């Protein structure tokens, strides 16, 4: 059984409180709240990125068979450069071990695949690949924003030259089948899909510090023994990197768990580590997955409703998409960058109005008082940006 561990690393570029009465004439400088973004980046760097990377480097050096994978959004990398260059350097150090793989995704952590013109999606993936190439070898495995996946996405990504794609291991995609195998995708030639084992991933990502959980406290030994008893070829454990030190604070013991996990896994003879590209290279497919609709790893619904579930979100997204041709026609690099940054999926996530448990998660991450404020602020920015475009 191959264990594949992957972490998503992202920080959104949050907007300033932008009044309807303010006029920046389309200059992106005032749209983003540099102070807030810096504060959050510095905080999370101190609590999560730096200590987690330090530990990860230690583990890679100590255990030659340990392997790990990441994807860093372009938005994250840019903010590293601006606010915490030592974080980027620490990722580069992981890359230099040759056993940390860095996956492809959209540079802007965007919903650009959902635009009717797929050209923008292709460009953002290309931009991301260029950025990653500066410090790591590009991976042949792709991970779309928030693990968005469908037959069509896989087909497009295969044509771009990728041989693997990540997706949520949803029950309705799998039916009676297990997520612990590689699958092909309906309509694709050689594409392999790596399905996230959400139960085992969420045991760490969500439940690790949950005192109500029957398995609390979770130890590395217990977790490794669960993996040991699984049937299948591979187990994909995917989560946000901020799990370490940010979602679960240091005093929960999450770093100690991470420190002991690789040796606990490696001392079990039937378990070993693989990177996503190694899995795709050596593990064969068992069957095809058929995903006619877009799935993701977000919210209970695991679809696109976290970003486009209500009328405000769809209105804001359509308004953004509509500006695309004018932005490109203008040929202004700054305007193009601003427009793409306004496509961060997070802006739409903050406008979500779902009730029940998911809303609390949305609120936890949101810098706004309500989804209405998120929408209003976004539309104020977009209007100013659009006015600037018209002025020429």
């Amino acid at each position, binding site marked *: 059984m191959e264990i594949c561990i992957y972490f998503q690393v992202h920080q959104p570029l949050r907007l300033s409180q932008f009044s*309807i009465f303010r006029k920046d004439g389309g200059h992106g400088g005032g749209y983003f709240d540099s102070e807030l973004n810096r504060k959050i980046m510095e905080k999370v760097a101190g609590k999560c990125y730096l200590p987690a990377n330090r530990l990860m480097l230690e583990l890679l050096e100590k255990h030659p068979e340990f392997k790990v994978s990441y994807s860093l959004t372009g938005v994250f990398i840019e903010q590293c450069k601006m606010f915490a260059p030592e974080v980027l350097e620490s990722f580069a150090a992981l890359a230099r071990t040759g056993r940390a793989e860095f996956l492809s995704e959209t540079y802007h952590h965007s919903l650009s695949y959902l635009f009717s013109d797929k050209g923008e999606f292709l460009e953002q993936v290309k931009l991301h690949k260029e950025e990653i190439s500066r410090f790591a070898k590009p991976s042949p495995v792709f991970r779309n924003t928030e693990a968005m996946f469908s037959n069509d996405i896989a087909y497009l990504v295969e044509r771009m030259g990728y041989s693997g794609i990540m997706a949520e291991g949803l029950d309705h995609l799998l039916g009676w089948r297990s997520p612990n195998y590689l699958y092909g995708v309906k309509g694709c030639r050689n594409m392999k899909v790596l399905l996230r084992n959400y139960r085992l991933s969420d045991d760490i990502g969500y439940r690790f510090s949950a005192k109500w959980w029957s398995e609390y406290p979770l130890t590395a030994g217990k977790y490794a023994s669960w993996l040991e008893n699984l049937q299948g070829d591979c187990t994909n454990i995917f989560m946000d990197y901020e799990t370490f030190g940010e979602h679960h604070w240091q005093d929960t013991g999450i770093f100690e768990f991470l420190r002991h996990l690789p040796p606990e896994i490696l001392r079990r003879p039937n378990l070993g580590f693989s990177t996503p590209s190694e899995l795709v290279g050596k593990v064969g497919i068992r069957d095809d997955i058929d995903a006619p609709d877009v799935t993701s790893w977000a919210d209970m619904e695991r679809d696109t409703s976290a970003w486009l579930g209500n009328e*405000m979100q*769809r*209105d804001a997204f359509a308004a953004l998409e509509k500006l695309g041709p004018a932005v490109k026609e203008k040929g202004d690099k700054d305007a193009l960058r601003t427009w793409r940054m306004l496509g961060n999926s997070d802006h739409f996530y903050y406008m979500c*109005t779902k009730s029940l448990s998911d809303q609390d998660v949305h609120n936890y991450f949101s810098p706004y008082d309500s*989804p*209405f404020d998120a929408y*209003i602020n976004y539309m104020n920015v977009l209007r100013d940006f659009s006015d600037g475009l018209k002025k020429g």
Partner: protein
Amino acid sequence: MRIAMLGWEFPPFVSGGLGVHCFELTRALCSRGVEIDFFMPGCGKKPQPSCPGIRIIDVAETKLKPYLFVAKRGQSTGYGDNLLSAVNEYADACASGVVAEAESRGYDVLHAHDWLTAPAASRVKRRLSLPLVQTFHSTEFDRTSYPWDCILGIERQAAADADLIIAVSKRTREQVLRLGARQEKIRVVYNGVDRKRFREIEGERKYADEFKKGRKVVLFLGRLTEQKGPVQLLHAAKLVLEREPGTLFVIAGKGELLPLLISMAMHLGISKNVRFLGFVPDEDQRRIYRIADVYVMPSTSEPFGITALEAMSSGVPVIVSKTSGVSEVVKSAIRVDFWDIDRMADRILSVLQHPPLSRTMVEMANSDLEARTWERVAEETESIYREAAGKAR
């Protein structure tokens, strides 16, 4: 269970949320099998009982009002020389009325609303040793930025004498704590709304369209006092009208600030777009909500704010100040700081200009309203009665 309830007003004679609360609460309590004798000042006319299980008993006439208005020129406030003596006079009369009934009726709990009935309740409690529940719908700290010692004194005494206190929001609980009440005897029970009363009836849309003549309407409904924030709204109106000159601001309600607001609208150069309606009787309120494209409640200090729920029930998106009780429990309203004029104008404009925003707010209001029924208020109130009765034993 039989309750002696001491109130001040009862529909159709209503000057604020207190009357609505008493009407709806007694109705919902009755249908739970709680019997209520409702004692209130006589007012010449007989109010409509909210259900058959309630008796409305006039105890005395008084010129006191729950909300003290500044007297107009040439008129007296009607309080005589001394407000306190008027309060005591009514308290004596009311207490005697309750005691006289108590002999044959045998009350389990005494329930008083607001400061005006509190002295009477204290007297009854002393004479009959009944458990006393006191509801604070507001405190002197909310009503004015210059709290009056005389009324503060009455409220402090009420907070001390009550066995249990109901505050209509966490915000009000904080104010009651300032009155010296002990934390452990305060319970928060939020107000409710009867959605059915605000459902659209035929012909109303036509009336609204005729009134609006294609204009967008921003509605304010409340007493025209400092507490309700109409001054802030007019400043915001000025900014809104610079962007959307066709907007109409409808200010419904009466109060001491009316002359000031009228001259303010003239000085701001927006009087063409501000319509003062004066006091709107109960039966017309539902039609007023129907004309609004957005309802704004900019109160500087609002213990609860039932009108926000009424506007939501009428299908109107709502903007409320953060310093309001209702903002603690609704998710479908936009919250602003009452002093942030720029933001208030921004939010008003946004609701008017983006139909997807307005529709999403109205849609989300459903779950807010489902949680705020008078049946729930009555259930929570009844359990507080039982707790008070148990304590006294």
